[in-house]
């Protein structure tokens, strides 16, 4: 879910060679095989498509010395009284080509604010798909994995009601895609449709810190989702296990803690003294989307075998009702850490400051005790554009989503966030 960074030792970001390779292979497949299909005469023959999506959003809030972020992978947030366009704005383009023998290939790039502050486009999808009869689908390459219930990507604002995905529920997710693959099986049962999916792969998670540094960690994910769809109802249960390396700086930290001889510090050292950490997450939810009514209720929890991973419970409820082109909606989301931040027990002396600071910081990056009540309205300008206005009232007791620069930083804070956005697809 995240990586470990000791004070003063941020890891530099790097460009993933695996990502470059997947991009080149995908582009080769699209350009060499898809382009030949431009003159397709029959719909069973190959097709080539260029599609895109984007959001232009303005965000502000009312609490001084606090920056509001959409997720923990953003380097800058919106400040009080200033209009910030970088938080929710993004642009994505997708190229796809249908190939012979039930294959197709998709390449998708997205530009948005990254953990190091740049907007370099990121390859979010690049895969080859084989679907012999729609009961069975296999994808290999860079694929997205199921995060959403009603909208299956958190980057396509046009596909969901609110201006942004719930920060409580999705703000801690540090990547949307994996290099690997997935396998989907579908079957009609009892008047409805059962859809099961297994996925596995490796992904790069990005984290941005308040001091302007950022880090990138490699994670291995294995997971499964099981959906049942009937009429307007969708029920889902999803599970994922994330494994990530402890990092080269951990042995030094562990040795330092043990050298103090204090049992409390040694206990934390034992917790951290692993080469690989694991986090396990479960999400269960039900959604209704039929006619003008759209609603969803989600519950999720995460457990970790180390203090470096998340341990929290989350709930999200959202409902919207369309009235012609207007869709007013309300939502409430809450997340709560199950354990307080553990401390070394070492005195607050300069000689122990690096150890004390490192241990607190390791845990702070996944803190998520907060709740938000949301009200907003979506107006569909056309079948390709929407306009949204949204107000969020957030109470944060202990969260890594905010950059908190108040004199009493870390104490509970309330803020009201105002958002106006335009989403589009083409």
């Amino acid at each position, binding site marked *: 879910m995240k990586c470990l960074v000791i004070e003063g030792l941020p890891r530099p970001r790097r460009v993933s060679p695996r990502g470059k390779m997947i991009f080149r292979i995908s582009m080769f497949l699209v350009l060499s095989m898809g382009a030949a299909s431009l003159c397709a005469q*029959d719909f069973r023959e190959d097709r080539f498509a260029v599609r895109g999506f984007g959001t232009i959003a303005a965000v502000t809030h009312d609490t001084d010395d606090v920056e509001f972020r959409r997720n923990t992978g953003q380097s800058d947030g919106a400040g009080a009284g200033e209009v910030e366009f970088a938080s929710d704005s993004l642009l994505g383009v997708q190229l796809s080509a249908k190939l012979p023998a039930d294959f197709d290939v*998709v390449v998708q790039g997205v530009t948005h604010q990254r953990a190091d502050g740049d907007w370099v486009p990121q390859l979010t999808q690049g895969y080859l798909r084989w679907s012999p009869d729609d009961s069975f689908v296999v994808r290999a390459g860079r694929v997205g994995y199921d995060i959403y219930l009603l909208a299956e990507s958190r980057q396509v604002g046009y596909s969901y009601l609110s201006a942004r995905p719930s920060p409580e529920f999705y703000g801690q997710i540090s990547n949307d895609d994996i290099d690997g693959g997935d396998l989907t099986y579908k079957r009609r049962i009892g008047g409805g449709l059962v859809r099961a999916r297994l996925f596995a792969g490796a992904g790069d998670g990005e984290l941005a810190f308040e001091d302007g540094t950022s880090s990138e960690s490699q994670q291995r994910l294995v997971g499964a989702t099981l959906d049942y769809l009937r009429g307007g109802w969708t029920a889902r249960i999803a599970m994922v296990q994330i494994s990530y390396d402890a990092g080269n700086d951990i042995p030094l930290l562990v040795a330092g803690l043990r050298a103090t001889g204090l049992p409390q510090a040694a206990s934390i050292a034992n917790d951290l003294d692993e080469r690989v950490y694991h986090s396990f997450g479960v999400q269960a939810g039900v959604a209704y989307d039929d006619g003008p009514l759209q609603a969803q209720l989600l519950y999720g929890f995460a457990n970790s075998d180390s203090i470096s991973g998340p341990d929290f419970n989350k709930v999200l409820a959202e409902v919207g009702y369309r009235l012609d082109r207007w869709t007013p909606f309300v939502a409430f989301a809450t997340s709560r850490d199950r354990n307080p931040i553990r401390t070394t027990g070492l005195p607050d002396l300069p000689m122990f400051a690096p150890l004390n600071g490192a241990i607190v910081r390791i845990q702070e990056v996944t803190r998520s005790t907060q709740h938000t009540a949301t009200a907003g309205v979506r107006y569909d300008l056309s079948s390709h554009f929407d306009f949204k206005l949204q107000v969020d009232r957030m109470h944060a007791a202990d969260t890594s989503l905010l950059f908190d620069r108040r004199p009493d930083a870390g104490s509970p804070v309330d803020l009201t966030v105002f958002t106006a956005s335009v989403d589009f697809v083409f």
Partner: protein
Amino acid sequence: MKRLVAILMLALALPVARADDAPAGIVVIVNPASGVERLTRSEVIDIFLGRYRKLPTGQLALPIDVAEGGPERAQFYQQLVKKSPAEMSSYWARLVFSGQTSPPFQVPDVKTALQLVESNPNAIAYVDRAAVNPKVKVVLEIRP
């Protein structure tokens, strides 16, 4: 009194006359060689919303959409799933950009949709009942 009865009869007849003038309604059609006799509303929803594109015979279903802006398309989705064109566009944005599936193949008009269904046993489309010809088979009538 006779005049009042005549007015009442005229008033009662008027809606009937309007119904006679209205479009015959949207129907779902397949190729007669597909072997499909009937489809349920749920099966049609699964096929056109990209959830499960298989015909009851086990064959792959290839759904066809008439171009956006045409009355058939708006009426079809409004009656099938009570969704406006904007909501359907939003729905497809969910699936397309998460790499799940593609929207139905789009043709410019009903005439082209009919031609594709007539020539392909896997094709499935929707048309106004008045456009149905002997070379296609109606498998479901969409009612609001």
